[in-house]
């Protein structure tokens, strides 16, 4: 008893010697981070709201004219905006569900000991690690109308189609390719996340279920799904947000799929309408905020 009491008071003693609040040091250490985030994230976000009420020329020397809510009414009257929103949502839903399901499937497939497992895992991740720009050239080449290997294999060898689709020159096939590209590029992210959590599941749970006569599907439903649920929610939420704001992959692959990121970018830098682009940002920001507020209630990031 006595010794325990002693150590406790010793512990208290060292605690008291430390300052109660480290606010000065904390602020000094956090200053660069806070400064940069305020200057280049928080301020720009507020600035978006301000710019959205102006007709803002790209040339900074020309002055902006106040136009009130005109930019917002313009967008809400623009059929192209709603079309773009629809395309983006469809793209997001298909690519998120595709990449998550494939990632989970491959993770379950990998969740057993086998030879070359480590190297196979690294090879699977390759499409996720490689820069978009490199992958985009490969896809454009493979799906070239004239000499692409896909048309050659699908048409001349396997006779899947008589007349090859125009792939990146046609809005529908472009959309399909853009979705496939996203699934192929992003499923490794889901795969590594799921594989990590699957490896923590105690195999005795599966054995117990087996003794109870559970089928493979039952085991998946009863043991696997509850265990992976937190990871599943995180993967789906984060990937949805990132794909909703996708720009680079789609922009580099084709000019036939007008997702919101491209709609915003072109409004700003092709049509030089910064005010309208800022109001698109504000609208998208509001959508994002609602999603984050809803998501944070259930998902731990």
């Amino acid at each position, binding site marked *: 008893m006595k010794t325990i009491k002693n150590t406790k008071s010793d512990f208290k003693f*060292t605690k008291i010697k430390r300052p109660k609040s480290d606010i000065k*040091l*904390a602020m000094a250490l956090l200053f660069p981070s806070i400064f940069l985030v305020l200057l*280049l994230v928080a301020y720009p976000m507020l600035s*978006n709201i301000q710019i959205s009420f102006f007709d803002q020329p790209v040339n*900074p020397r020309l002055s902006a004219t106040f136009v009130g809510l005109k930019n917002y009414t313009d967008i809400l009257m623009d059929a192209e905006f709603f079309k773009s929103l629809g395309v983006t949502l469809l793209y997001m839903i298909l690519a998120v569900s595709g990449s998550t399901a494939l990632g989970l499937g491959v993770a379950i497939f990998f969740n057993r000991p086998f030879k070359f497992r480590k190297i196979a895992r690294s090879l699977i*991740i390759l499409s996720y*690690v490689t820069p978009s720009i490199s992958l985009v050239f490969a896809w454009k080449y493979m799906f070239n109308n004239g000499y692409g290997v896909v048309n050659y294999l699908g048409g001349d060898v396997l006779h899947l189609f008589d007349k090859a689709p125009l792939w990146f020159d046609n809005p529908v096939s472009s959309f399909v390719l853009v979705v496939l590209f996203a699934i192929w590029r992003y499923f490794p*992210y889901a795969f590594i996340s799921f594989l990590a959590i699957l490896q923590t599941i105690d195999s005795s749970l599966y054995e117990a279920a087996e003794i109870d006569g559970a089928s493979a599907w039952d085991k998946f439903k009863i043991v696997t799904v509850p265990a992976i649920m937190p990871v599943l929610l995180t993967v789906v939420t984060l990937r949805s947000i990132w794909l909703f704001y996708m720009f680079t992959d789609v922009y580099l692959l084709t000019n036939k799929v007008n997702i919101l990121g491209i709609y915003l970018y072109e409004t700003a830098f092709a049509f030089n309408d910064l005010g309208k682009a800022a109001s698109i940002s504000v609208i998208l920001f509001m959508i994002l905020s609602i999603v984050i507020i809803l998501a944070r209630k259930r998902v731990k990031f």
Partner: protein
Amino acid sequence: MAMASSKKSRATKKVAFYTGLICLLTVSLFPFFIMLMTSFKSPKEAVATNPTLLPQHWTFKHYVDMFNPDIFPYLSYFKNSLTVALTAASLAVVIGIFGAYALSKLKFMGRTTINASFYTVYMFSGILLVVPLFKIISGLGLYDTKTAIIITMIVQTLPTAIFMLKSYFDTIPDDLEEAAMIDGLNRVQIIFYIVIPLSISGIISVFVYSFMVAWNDYLFASIFLSDSANFTLPIGLNALFSTPDYVWGRMMAASLVTALPVVIMYAVSEHFIKGNMTEGGVKG
């Protein structure tokens, strides 16, 4: 009899498994295979209407041409990308270490708020900020400079860097720091002598993550850069692709060499870090 059949079914299972694995890897790696093979094909062979998987006449010309500045400005783009990515990643790591240490180990008012706001920033995509950032960068006189890209990339990767580092720092026991304090080390010395050496694998994975984000960036480079002397690889290669006289083999060689630094860095960091990739994630 029963044993023989179970042995047989185990063998069948094994064959089925490895067949599945090979199919999976074939589909997943096919574009890489095409890239590699095309980079060894002559320009004429690359656009043949009945393509062959392997080059009929292997040529290494594209890899030589690629590094010839008279033909292809690849080296200049590569150098710019390397400068941007190395500087941005180093600074993100240093700033991140300080920030993460404060959020992990120091007690002060507003810690939770700051933590939560960084979480929110994490989910912001760059595309929402392009208009005001363009104005701010122009206003600061940084338009068409590498500095513009570097600071943007630091901010884009900083929230993730802080979270990854904070989760590493959180695992360092407080007792260790208290012992060090009793030995007379101050907080700053503790960061350098205790926290950094204990989290070296986390620091490396943050560096790799930030490097990858900066190396891959197309969006901000396309907005902030106009002089091709400043171009980084993504914007430079895409600009070359739009000109009529690109050569497929050379583009493929360039694509592969562009991917090489990040793939090597990833493989090296993967070698001694467990499960790092899931923490960062690739943003669009």
